[in-house]
Structures are given as C-alpha cells and as structure tokens.
C-alpha cells in the first residue's frame, strides 16, 4: 500500500509531520502512522503555552489496539491546539494532514528544521 506523503511538509522518522509557515509550524502524524495505529480513540495533547523540545514526546495517540507517544519535530511554544481531536479523535484517521492536525508551534530554532526528513526521504523510510 502506498501512502500520501505531501511534498510541502517535513517529517520525523517517528512519523510526525511539520508544516512551516513563517515562524510557526503545524504538527501532526502521517497517513502511514494512522494506518499503523488503526482506529484512533483518544488523543492527549499539551496545553497552549507549553514549551516543546525537539525529539521529546509531547502527547499520546491511542487507538483501539495500541498506545503511541508523539514526538516534537521542533522546539518551541505551543500556540494552538486542535481541540476538535478531543471529541473527534477519528479525524486523525480520516484527514491526518488536514483536519487531523494536532498543534501549532512557534518555532524557537529554525535551524532544527534542516534536520528533518524530506518527503522523498520519508517515502523511502515507509516504502
């Protein structure tokens, strides 16, 4: 099965994506990740204002069959949280790159973005 890997995003090996716009970045999990997890039933996310550190876990996604930590692609401060996921965790399955976004982060160090996987590199990883 091949999975959607949008060209305008960067990726972590642990299957998170980041969409950078100016000095903020939107963060979520990939189509591959949601497929591996199966039916998502619960999402635990930090509050606005929380400081994230690149590479450290910031939340949890639980499907019917598994629990998975979610890791921060970049360091920064959480400026928005997708509250819809609280009542509609299935959005992560249905639209992982759109309505299933998780956080918006004010990026602390743009240099960290260079260390993330390109779309092609991520495609190779999940191939």
């Amino acid at each position, binding site marked *: 099965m091949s999975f959607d890997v949008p060209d305008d995003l960067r990726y972590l090996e642990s299957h998170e994506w980041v969409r950078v716009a100016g000095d903020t970045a939107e963060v979520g999990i990939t189509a591959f990740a949601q497929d591996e997890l*199966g039916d998502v*039933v*619960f999402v635990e996310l930090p509050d606005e204002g929380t400081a994230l550190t690149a590479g450290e876990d910031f939340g949890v996604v639980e499907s019917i*069959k598994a*629990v998975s930590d979610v890791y921060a692609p970049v360091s920064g401060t959480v400026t928005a949280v997708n509250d819809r996921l609280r009542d509609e965790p299935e959005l992560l399955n249905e639209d992982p790159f759109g309505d299933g976004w998780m956080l918006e982060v004010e990026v602390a160090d743009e240099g960290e973005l260079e260390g993330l996987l390109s779309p092609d590199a991520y495609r190779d990883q999940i191939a």
Partner: protein
Amino acid sequence: MSLRSPPLSAVHETADASFTDFGGWEMPVEFESIRAEHEAVRGEAGKFDVSHMGQITVSGPDAAALTQRLTTNDVTALDPGEAQYSAITDDAGVMLDDTVVYRLPAGAAEEFLFVPNAGHDGEMTERWLTERDERGLDATVTNRTEEYAMVAVQGPDAPALLAAETDGVTLSALSRFEVADGTVAGVDALLARTGYTGERGFEVLCPWDDAETVWNALACQPCGLGARDTLRLEMGFLLSGQEFHPVDEPRTPYEAGIGWTVKLDTEFVGRDTLEGIAAEGPAETLVGLELVDRGVPRHGYDVTTPDGDAIGHVTSGTMSPTLGTPIALAYVPTAHAEPGESVRVVVRGEPKKARIRSTPFLDR
C-alpha cells in the same frame, strides 16, 4: 518455533488482513478496521476464523466420567446435542483454561468435544490422557485441532445468513448452547449456537480442508481477533491469558466471576479447594470498570482507591466501540467490588476517575 497457520491463511492474505501471533498461531487480527468489524457484528453480521481454538474429542464408555473429572461443570447434565461452558482447574482450584464442552448429537455412543483455548490443545490432550490412564478409564481422547476448522458467524443477521446455506438442521429451532449436525454449502458440519460476542450467532465446525467453502459461503464482514477482543470485552467475557493464567494471573473460577460453572456436587480436580473458597467467598473479584475521566485503561494498569492506595489491576481494557466510553475488567478486593464504588485507574502515572460496574457492559 514456527507458527501454526489456520486453513484459511491464504484467503485472509488475499483479503489483505494483518496478522498476529496468538497462542502460537498466526491469526488475522484486522481486515478492514477493528471498529468497522465490531460495528458489523453488532449491527449486521461478521465471520471469524477461529480455527486456532482447540478441538479435542473424548469417546468411549468412560468419556463422561473422564470429562467430569477434569472440568468443573456437570457433564451428566448434558443431553446429546447440548453444550456447556466450563472451567478446567488444578488441585488448587486455579483455572488452567476455560472451555465449552459439547455432547455430540450423533450416534448412540457418548462422545464429547471440548474446545480449549489457542495453544492449549496439546497440554489438555495430555491432561486427559494422563488422568484416563491413572484412573484406568476406558475412553479415547483425540486432539483434532488440525482436523477441524472453526468459523464463527455472529450478529443479528447471522442466523438468517447461515440458514440460507444450511441443510439438515433447522437453525431457528436450536437454543443457545445447542448443537446439531448439518451441512453448510454442502459441507458436513457441526453447527453450535454458541459464540463469544454476545450476539446471536453460531460456530461451525467443518473438516479442515473444507474451511474455504464454508467461509466463502457466508457473505458478511470478515473479522479479526481485534474485533473479537472488543466484542467479548463489552460482554465481560474472559480471555485466557488475560483474566486468568496459571502462572501470571492464577485465579479460581470464583474470582473470575464464573463460579456458576462450578458444580460442587460433582467430583473434579480442584473441587475440595473450591468448596472452601465457595464457603468463605473469594478475597478478590473480577469487576467491570467504566472510566469517568478521559483515557483508555489497558492491561496491567493499577487500580487504586480515591486516596491512592493500590488495590488491584486492569486485566483488559479498551474504548468500547459500541458505548463510546472507556471500559475495563480488573481484579479488586471483594470488599471494593460493589457496583458504583469510585476508584481510580492509573493511566501513565495519572489517576483517572472510574466506577465499578457490573458486567456485561452491554445488554444482550
């Protein structure tokens, strides 16, 4: 050690199932999605390949005596064509397995079939043979696990769906825990009105090599072990290895909530110990839990009092697809087992409010 494969492995692969090791068997865990499969069974019908369940026949003049000795329920209560749920215990009354015992309908001679859990067939065959020889009983014990396939079809539409493919037996006349011989899609089969989902449905035993014919004749959602687990958990049914295990979770039938399968007026291995427990009551009891706070209870999570005193642990938990709420089974001291009692489930270090409740979680 290589995994055992059910006879429908190739069919499942073609259907793009994902697989898991379950009791030494490579079994389909998910076809479409656990939620979709679960909802199909609650709303319409689903079919499960449960050929990993053991099938052991016991026949001969002492077949009933032997099975009576090794199971806690009363097999003499079974007429031909009837089945019963039962436990298999050791001398300490600890559950080695749970099982369904069928008294087969065919022929004049008494013949029993019992269905131990996946991976237990070898051990249980040995147990029956050893007991038979030590007691000098006249019985033939045969492990037929890889002779019979077993397909479960469950859900409100399952009786009509199966009836359309069945000859030789009127399925609508079969009561729960009754079993009859018939044919399904032309294949000789044993049809039992049993199941593990709480829905109306049947389990079909057929020759291993005919499994594909039976499977393909049942036009409904294929379901894997993932949905089987969420469905059984909503009903509060036990899963071997989770709610009981002779080493990791040694439990008596009374603790596990199936004391009704123990008939103390029969003689069986573990009876005397269980008689003492029946008189005093078990120190711990398996209860249902419903989380009030958000979170998902999982196997092994601690259960505490509201003050934080550890009192038990979760054996199985999930987000109920039908109810939309987090549910679990857990062992707690019997003094804390009263429905409505407030407890906490520790989810990744966070105590989450939960309430003890009776099972099943669903009315069925």
